[in-house]
């Protein structure tokens, strides 16, 4: 069962066989969502994140087939290296990832339906936060201000900003999960 195999075992199977579609699919299924997240964190947009996932998976598959992934205990380190290199190139616009034929890699098949937060519910939940906490989360994630900048603007300490931001996100998640449960 490929689902239970370690990452290194999947890579070993891909390297040893001329065709290991199950192992390749499982490796993609495992890493595609994580690479997308890396892309969102470092490249910000969904389009860039999807481009990154597509190109990194192709690099990883090629390397696995050629037996070039040496550290089987830490396949994620190879993936991380590919993420860093390709993210840098996407940032510099050296690569607008070439659309890949579905038979080469159908990325959509490996990305699950991601959790989406309803903006309407979020709006309702934001009104339940106190004014200062609401300002902290919106300044952090909308205006992309640092904890130091927010601290100065709201006359708080940076540590205080971090505590308020963390608590506010927990409150929002709790509120959103209640709204979900309350929906018919």
């Amino acid at each position, binding site marked *: 069962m490929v689902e239970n195999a370690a*990452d290194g075992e999947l890579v070993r199977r891909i390297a040893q066989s001329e065709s290991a579609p199950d192992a390749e699919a499982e490796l993609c299924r495992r890493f595609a969502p994580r690479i997308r997240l890396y892309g969102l964190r470092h490249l910000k947009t969904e389009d860039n994140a999807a481009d990154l996932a597509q190109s990194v998976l192709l690099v990883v598959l090629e390397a696995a087939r050629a037996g070039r992934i040496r550290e089987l205990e830490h396949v994620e380190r190879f993936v991380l290296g590919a993420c860093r290199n390709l993210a840098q190139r996407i940032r510099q616009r050296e690569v607008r990832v070439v659309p890949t034929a579905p038979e080469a890699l159908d990325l959509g098949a490996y990305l699950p339906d991601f959790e989406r937060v309803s903006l309407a519910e979020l709006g309702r939940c934001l009104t339940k936060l106190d004014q200062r906490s609401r300002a902290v989360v919106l300044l952090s994630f909308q205006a992309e201000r640092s904890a130091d900048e927010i601290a100065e603007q709201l006359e708080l300490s940076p540590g205080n900003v971090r505590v308020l931001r963390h608590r506010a996100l927990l409150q929002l998640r709790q509120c959103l999960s209640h709204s979900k449960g309350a929906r018919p």
Partner: protein
Amino acid sequence: MTCATPVSSEELVRYWARDLPSDEVDRLDEHLLGCATCSAESARVAALVGALAAFIPPVVTREALRELEARGLRLEEHAFLPAQRKRAVFRREIDVLVHRLTGLDLAQAQAVSVIVRAEHTGHVLLEVQHVPFDASGVLIACQRHFRDGPHDIAFEVRVSRAAGADETALYLIPHSFE
């Protein structure tokens, strides 16, 4: 699916808030790429952070509207008077429909709050205290996802004044979405 060294929720929030030193970011990048449990938790934080980045408050300032336009969003603005029933049409071509609630004496206003109700059921959809306002009125940023809620909207604007002569105005705005 377990992790022997789970990333704390504080760290994840700082990671997504871009508030960690680069060596810590590198460490988390590696861990999250290799760990299904922590990656799933990170995805939950990312979904909330992404929604916060996309969120537009329902009551906005003029400056916020200028920023939205600068981001490339297409806005359309209409003025409304109290006690007047006037339809708002959210056209396909626009991203934010701005309702300017006018006809209020806001010169002496200390605080303004807005209650949004479904007109026919009276159900409160939203209540926001201390909303921004200026001499031209109160600006409501109506967004496409509001179509999922009731369309027969009544905005109740409460103005508190120092002298105590408070005022409440009602705006009846049935909505339709193209």
